């Protein structure tokens, strides 16, 4: 990741074995974005493997970012899957602890959480040095570019900032934020983060499409704080005007982030159509 303003999008692999729709989206995204992030059964809803989706993206000449959570794998499986991903050509990993199964479509599943995301970062650092978590030698070194997540929305913020600092010390080279709706909150975090040299920060954003989407995010997505003022503003709009508002709102934030060099890039989350990303990026 150099000094250019990075644009990534998030894709959720399909619920099922048919990847036709995902491959079509990838075709459309190839020349639009720098990388595509593939989620790891987000909200604990079981989906096709993120690693497999990354491999399919590589075949389409797209740079994939493998999201890996600690929810479903113990330390053996995490390391084994990471080595497998590396052998398949995957180089970018974004680690997170992961939404609890209670949110998903397999509520009865045993949550694993053998290690947390700080440990997972350390695991990857070790793999990059040619050893596993227990310092056993590997027959080579990986060369992952590893990122972590941070949520500037939460209150109280300090415990989150300390974890951010810890993740940096455990080897995170870039950070992706949870979706942001208020630049003021983001700035508080950035003031703290900028103390650390060399950190790359990508700001998570969504393009609001419908009132329902915004309400769902406000109520159901862990750790996301949608300001009440924004919910009220959107609720007063006519339904057909929400999409335009959503694009304008995301554009305004993205331009400020880019033009003031506040962060290194943006990450567009929860996209449904390639067209919307295209329209948005054309205007940016």
């Amino acid at each position, binding site marked *: 990741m150099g000094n250019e303003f990075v644009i990534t999008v998030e894709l959720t692999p399909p619920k099922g074995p048919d990847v036709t729709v995902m491959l079509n989206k990838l075709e459309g995204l190839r020349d639009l974005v720098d990388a595509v992030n593939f989620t790891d059964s987000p909200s604990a809803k079981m989906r096709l493997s993120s690693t497999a989706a990354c491999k399919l993206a590589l075949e389409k000449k797209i740079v994939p970012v493998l999201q890996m959570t*600690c929810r479903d794998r113990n330390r053996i499986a995490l390391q084994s899957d990471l080595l497998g991903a590396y052998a398949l050509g995957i180089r970018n990993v974004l680690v997170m602890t992961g939404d609890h199964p209670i949110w998903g479509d397999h509520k009865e599943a045993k949550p694993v*959480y053998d290690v*947390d995301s700080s440990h997972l970062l350390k695991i990857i650092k070790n793999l990059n040095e040619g050893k596993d978590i227990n310092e056993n030698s590997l027959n080579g070194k990986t060369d992952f570019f590893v990122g972590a997540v941070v949520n500037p929305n939460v209150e109280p913020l300090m415990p989150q900032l300390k974890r951010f600092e810890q993740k940096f010390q455990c080897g995170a080279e870039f950070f992706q934020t949870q979706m942001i709706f208020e630049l003021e909150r983001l700035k508080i975090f950035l003031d703290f983060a900028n103390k650390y040299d060399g950190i790359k920060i990508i700001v998570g954003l969504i393009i609001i499409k419908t009132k329902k989407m915004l309400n769902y995010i406000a109520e159901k997505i862990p750790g996301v704080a949608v300001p009440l003022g924004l919910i009220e503003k959107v609720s007063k709009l006519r339904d057909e005007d929400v999409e335009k508002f959503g694009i304008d709102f995301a554009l305004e934030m993205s331009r400020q982030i880019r033009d003031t060099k506040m962060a290194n890039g943006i990450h567009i989350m929860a996209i449904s159509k390639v067209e919307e990303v295209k329209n948005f990026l054309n205007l940016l």
Partner: protein
Amino acid sequence: MIVSKKKPIEDLSQLLKRYNSFFLIGCSECASLCSTGNEEAILNLKGWLEKEGKKVTGWFIAKTGCQILGTKREVSKYKDLIDESECILTLSCGSGTQTIVELFEDKPVIPTNDTLFIGNMRRFKEFEEKCRACGECFLAITGVCVVTLCPKSMLNGPCGGYKNGKCEVNPQRKCVWITAFSILESRGVVDSFYESLLGPKDWSKASSPRNYKAMEKGS
């Protein structure tokens, strides 16, 4: 204490239906505190069984049902009444039940409780899980058990899922890491805590079944 609760009456009826006479064994320790193994629980169960047309040959409350030798001594006094019954019902935790299974291998032993967790009593008959008996206690560091009270067993601070200090998994509960963080702050050790990484946890210490002999050298 080991917290237990009574099995649903329909489940118990199903388990008991093939037997007609019972001997009941309670426990004066945790199950009594939980009102699942005290005299009142025994007499209620006895009354219900008799109303169902079953016979209760006798009952007693073990001092400490999980203490195998002591319970063996106590139970020997009731040998005849136990012989007279077709089945023993235990009003204790799963450990106490298995003491009785070990002592009466040939007789059906049915627990009337489900064993829930190691917990504290907040108010009368209100229990909260506090400890997972994981074999590697971090309470000296975190003050509250983050292994037990965090649904993700986070050892190094909160995940990013809390909202207004409330847990992602149960928004009625405060995120335990917000409490743990306040403890670290009030002790003035936030920075030293974050100088290193706690864990990863050694789950081999929680690998069941576990045995422990306190008399062994080095213990």
